[in-house]
């Protein structure tokens, strides 16, 4: 039997087993008093007394970095679910350390639009919001401040439903550019491209976890995690794929230097060509492009994927807990 899991639209329909598995993951059974309730009765979707604060990285040199955060703040503002929706940034106004001065709702949910748990989500943002004092190794994710309850939610990138966001991106690109025809997933190797860095294992883990989840669904012929700064490298995709069609999804929030310029270069476009295309306002990668006998589709970063707004809501629901 299938029935709607949630109103967010990420999972249109799920089996009972999937629903229970999902609930167990969100709330350990000991803390979840109402496993027998019908979905979504055990989740409060009334946030009219709450403010939502989306945190992005931002940039002091270009507007692109902030675009996805603003996009989802606009989208969620339009839905009218929250009393107030604010975006804030590490590098742009309103700054992380500034934003709560303008938030007055009794409940406040802070959701970082970041890919992985790490330096920014666990150290910098909590410190600048006053959740964590310098030197503290841990901090309470829900805190009382004056008459407000502040909830610090997990980053969107590590949420299990990001799998749907990645799959949506992969589906869309071949449907948008079906030349000569859109390949079936079963004839396609899907690559999830991440930054990767020796400084933070979580960066790699978030990508590998998503690759494993998608692989488990057996939709695509192959699923690989590849990286800019670690092995296996993005440029190795042609060698790693055993099928002709490749779809590569950059697991980045923002389209910027990495996704617009660096990755197309790693995929074989000469950097001067990439820069000339950028200068002329053209896409830096043409879908699909033939390389070494492989046909490669390359998507935009996931941050602008509309479903990400629903992942944000899922993070808020998790923090709000059962009603």
């Amino acid at each position: 039997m299938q029935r709607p899991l949630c109103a967010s639209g990420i999972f249109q329909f799920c089996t009972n087993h999937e629903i229970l598995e999902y609930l167990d993951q969100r709330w350990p059974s000991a803390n979840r008093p109402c496993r027998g309730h019908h979905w979504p009765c055990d989740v409060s979707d009334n946030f009219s007394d709450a403010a939502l604060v989306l945190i992005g990285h931002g940039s002091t040199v270009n507007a692109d970095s902030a675009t996805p955060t603003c996009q989802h703040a606009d989208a969620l503002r339009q839905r009218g679910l929250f009393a107030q929706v604010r975006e804030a940034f590490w590098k742009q106004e309103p700054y992380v350390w500034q934003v709560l001065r303008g938030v007055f709702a009794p409940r406040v949910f802070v959701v970082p639009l970041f890919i992985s748990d790490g330096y920014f989500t666990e150290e910098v943002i909590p410190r600048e919001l006053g959740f964590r004092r310098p030197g503290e190794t841990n901090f309470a994710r829900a805190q009382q401040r004056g008459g407000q309850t502040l909830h610090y939610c997990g980053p969107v990138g590590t949420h299990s439903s990001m799998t749907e966001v990645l799959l949506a991106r992969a589906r869309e690109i071949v449907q948008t550019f079906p030349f000569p025809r859109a390949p079936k997933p079963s004839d396609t190797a899907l690559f999830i491209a991440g930054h990767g860095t020796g400084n933070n294992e979580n960066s790699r883990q978030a990508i590998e976890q998503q690759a494993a989840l998608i692989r488990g669904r057996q939709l695509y012929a192959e699923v690989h995690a590849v990286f800019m700064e670690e092995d296996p490298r993005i440029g190795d995709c042609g060698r790693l794929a055993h099928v002709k069609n490749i779809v590569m999804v950059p697991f980045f929030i923002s389209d910027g230097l990495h996704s617009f310029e660096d990755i197309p270069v790693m995929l074989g476009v000469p950097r001067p060509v990439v820069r000339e295309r950028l200068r002329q306002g053209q896409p830096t990668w043409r879908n699909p492009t033939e390389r070494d006998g492989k046909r490669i589709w390359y998507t935009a970063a996931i941050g602008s994927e509309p479903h990400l707004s629903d992942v944000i809501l899922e993070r808020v629901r998790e923090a709000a807990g059962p009603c």
Partner: protein
Amino acid sequence: MNPDMRAFLAALDTEIVFGQVAVRRLERGFELRHESDRSAAADNLTTLKGTELRTWSQQAAGGAFRPLKSAPNLRAGWRALAADSAALELLLHYLYPGAVADWFAAQAAAPPITSYRQFTARQTGMYRITTMLQDAIAGAAIRACCHVDFCLKRRLWSVEGLEADAAGAKSLIPCLEPCALLLEFARKVARLEQNDAPPSEEPQADAAEGDFDAPSNPRRKRFGLEKQALAAKRAVE
């Protein structure tokens, strides 16, 4: 209505100039326009709606990205209408994010001001170096970075030996703590001080506002002048 907007509307009799924006009460709702367009005919101005105003405020004339919305280079030639206080709040948020809340917070009996030392002491990673600037150099960096040519916020925070901006200076928008540009600039200054590199003599076109690696960055040029003034003062002493 949030208390900051309630206070803002109480201060808005018929018109208030906030940063470079003139906000006027209309018979119904509000109108915003660049202060230099106060006497312009409405028909001669482009009407911007909602997020169009945010997009407009992201670029200076010539298309350069504006990393600081309080920079004195907001383009003129537009007007925007707000039907009610909620719409006005959002439009002001697009133009000057967080500024109304800061304006309100600055009126508290004990405004939440964070000094350069308090702010930099909690930084980690690549910004830890900003704690190493001596007061006089930090002061010169702040004078350069927060100069009225670059930012219209009235700086209420400071560092030892440097006065906060006087009441009535720059604009109504207060600055309650260092910003990301200041932090980045202080980091660059700290590195320059470590290397003690002489400033370039070559005249160059101004680099992007947020590109502190370029010697032709306007704030870096200004810092050169501030250091010269500091050296001259020390010579007299």
